[in-house]
């Protein structure tokens, strides 16, 4: 019997020039923290220390916000066309340095190089290109009368798509004339710091973009800072609620993009082979560390067995391992903490009586790993059908009628995304109308584009990012006061 073993095909690390320690990027330069404690960022695939970064102190946050405030006047009075030039320049540099960004992202985050190379980095650059085009057309974007920037924007982003979330946040803020203080997640600061170098390379005026590393307290200090006019956050619903409470009663505007428990709904007339791909892409893309992941599979009872069999056969071909190997499909879990959370919820699923299944695959000895996992026999009252696991764990539920599919899909506090698989166009439109989800994909899943607004219903947050709708979160309109 022949065996087709794929030899290792690692992407070279030599393209990345890692420093042993990084300062904070404030007012156009890297500076030392004042009073902040250093911490290490590691590769989740090997637990190797990559670099040391600083946990920014309250004083550092002050300095960063002050720098952004000082830059705001001249940046916001630049013509839109001139701001657009900077954004175009940043976008082009990101493309030129794409391999560097991709390798660094996979090292620091643990995601497979094929995803950072083919998804994260190209779409991040695309966001800058897209918003560069808007910069001189804001008056014609139907945002309202006299659109103008808020001022200083405080942005806090998660670890699952470090560079892409940075692009989602910074590109529209700059295009509309705001200045930015951004805090990347504590486990994945490195591509944000590389982006800071790109800002220098693009001669972006000092203070327009400031990047401060740190953990929760730094983010909290930034969000609560008196001189921040607008807050943008992507992350967990718990933290999102805390932010909403922090800024309640202040002048601050906010967009919150939070958790999800998306239903991926497969009807019996679906193109089954492609639906199986969509299920895999929905929950195992980026190790399931995706807020809009299709973590609940709702499959029509009449084809449930067929879908389950094909899904399991497909999962057996997934390649789990070294994120830098070009053939890796599933990389490392981002942190020990996240791995622990996944383990806990999976244990709950077993204890509550759902049937757990994983393909046979060897996991590396070091680092944080979790096999792709499918739970069958799940019902709505199981915790694994209600709580966001944020890992490569799929819960399979069944339904009998379109109405039942809609009720089950909507029976969650979340409402970020949903998927519909059917060959019947009228049903797609009817379902999309019924589903309380910000994004509804039809016969595909996890497709992102800068032109398409993204955001949630209910406890998945508010505000939209991307597209014309995303711009409106970064401007105020009406007569000047």
């Amino acid at each position, binding site marked *: 019997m022949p065996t087709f073993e*794929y030899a*290792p095909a690692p992407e070279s690390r030599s393209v990345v020039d890692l420093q042993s320690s990084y300062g904070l990027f404030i007012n156009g330069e890297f500076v030392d923290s004042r009073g902040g404690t250093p911490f290490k960022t590691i590769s989740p695939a090997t637990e190797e220390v990559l670099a040391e970064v600083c946990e920014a102190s309250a004083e550092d946050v002050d300095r960063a916000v002050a720098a952004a405030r000082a830059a705001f006047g001249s940046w916001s009075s630049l013509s839109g066309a001139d701001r657009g030039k900077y954004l175009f320049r940043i976008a082009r540099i990101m493309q030129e340095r794409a391999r560097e960004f991709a390798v660094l992202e996979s090292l620091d985050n643990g995601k497979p190089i094929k995803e950072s190379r*083919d998804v994260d980095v190209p779409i991040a650059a695309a966001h800058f290109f897209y918003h560069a085009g808007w910069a001189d057309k804001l008056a014609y974007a139907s945002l309202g009368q006299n659109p103008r920037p808020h001022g200083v924007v405080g942005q806090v982003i998660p670890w699952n798509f470090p560079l892409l979330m940075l692009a989602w946040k910074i590109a529209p803020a700059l295009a509309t004339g705001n200045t930015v203080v951004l805090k990347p997640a504590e486990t994945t600061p490195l591509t944000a710091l590389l982006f800071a170098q790109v800002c220098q390379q693009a001669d972006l005026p000092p203070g327009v973009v400031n990047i401060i590393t740190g953990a929760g307290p730094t983010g909290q200090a930034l969000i609560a800072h008196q001189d921040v006019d607008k807050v943008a956050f992507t992350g967990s619903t718990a933290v999102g609620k805390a932010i909403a409470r922090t800024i309640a009663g202040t002048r601050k505007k906010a967009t919150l993009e939070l958790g999800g428990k998306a239903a991926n709904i497969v009807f019996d007339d679906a193109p089954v082979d*492609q639906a199986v791909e969509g299920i895999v892409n929905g929950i195992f893309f980026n190790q399931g560390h995706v807020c809009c992941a299709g973590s609940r599979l709702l499959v029509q009872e009449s084809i449930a067995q067929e879908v389950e069999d094909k899904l399991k056969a497909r999962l057996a071909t997934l390649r789990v391992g070294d994120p830098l190997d070009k053939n890796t499909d599933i990389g490392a879990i981002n942190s020990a903490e996240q791995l622990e959370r996944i383990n806990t919820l999976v244990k709950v699923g077993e204890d509550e009586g759902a049937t757990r299944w994983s393909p046979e695959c060897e996991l590396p000895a070091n680092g944080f790993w979790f096999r792709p996992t499918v739970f069958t026999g799940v019902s709505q009252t199981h915790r694994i059908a209600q709580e966001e696991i944020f890992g490569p764990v799929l819960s399979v539920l069944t339904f009998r009628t379109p109405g039942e599919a809609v009720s089950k899909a909507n029976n969650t506090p979340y409402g970020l995304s949903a998927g519909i698989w059917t060959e019947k166009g009228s049903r797609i439109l009817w379902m999309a109308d019924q589903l309380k989800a910000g994004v509804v994909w039809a*016969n595909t899943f996890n497709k992102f584009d800068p032109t398409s607004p993204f955001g949630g219903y209910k406890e998945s947050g508010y505000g939209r990012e991307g597209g014309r709708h995303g711009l409106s979160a970064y401007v105020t309109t009406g007569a000047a006061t």
Partner: protein
Amino acid sequence: MSTDTAAPVTTASDAPARAREVLGVSRLTNTALTSWLHGLSGVDQVGAEARAASLGTRSIKTTSKAWAIDQAISMIDLTTLEGADTAGRVRGLAIRALTPDPSDLSTPRPAAVCVYGDMVGHARDVLGDSGVKVAAVATAFPSGRASLAVKLADVADAVSAGADEIDMVIDRGAFLSGDYLSVFDQIVAVKEACGDARLKVIMETGELVTYDNVRRASYLSMLAGGDFIKTSTGKVAPAATLPVTLIMLQAVRDWRGLTGQQVGVKPAGGIRTSKDAIKFLVTVHEVAGEDWLTNQWFRFGASSLLNDLILQRQKLATGAYSGADYIADDSPSLY
């Protein structure tokens, strides 16, 4: 890597009986076939093409590349199908099949030499009992526009001249007009005329256009007893694309699940580089599985592909590219 032909799993006469059993009908009518074929799960074009593209990004290096190159060479149906074919040209091709790379005798031989029916004897003479098969295109290849009697005579002629394998074309006109029963009956008749020869059914996917049609034609060909399903004649563009081959590999995989019978797949036409061939092998591996990774169950219909595979094979061995001057080749085909 054995090229021994297993006895056909289905003999010609029991194909209709099995078809009735698979469909669950007492009489095989066009209505019954239509309901069955149209009841197959549809294919989403965007999703299928995205899946094929993602399989095409696999990075196959060093030892796995060496393995894949040898495997691909052994899967080639080395083909010449020109109006200008002569006995000398066919003999040249057959000699090449026996010694693909005179500078490296460890190079595996292609699976078969594929020619028009009147050239079978010349190929047979050279190949003898070497194990390299003789495949003949038949049934009024490439258009298939002839009466059934003429098609069957074409097949019988090739078989009697010593063909081990017959590559027939389906009646695309009948298929596209919904006359599935007629296509079925013709395949059954050709299969019967093949005797012990293995039957490859060419669907000419470039004329079927949609992936739904490719899936239906695949199932129809397997139901009628084809031992292989094959994409194209090579005379119509597009010929063998990766998404089409992906759909066919899903079909043979699911067919085995349904009936227990394994059917081979042969993409033909347009595959010219080692890089492309390896993408197809990756797709075979990850979609149909390892059972299909032999020349018993997977073939490439190609001619110039062999040159590039040998070039890459030499490069892996020596570390440097030799160049076309070091690849022994008779006149290149237009195929």
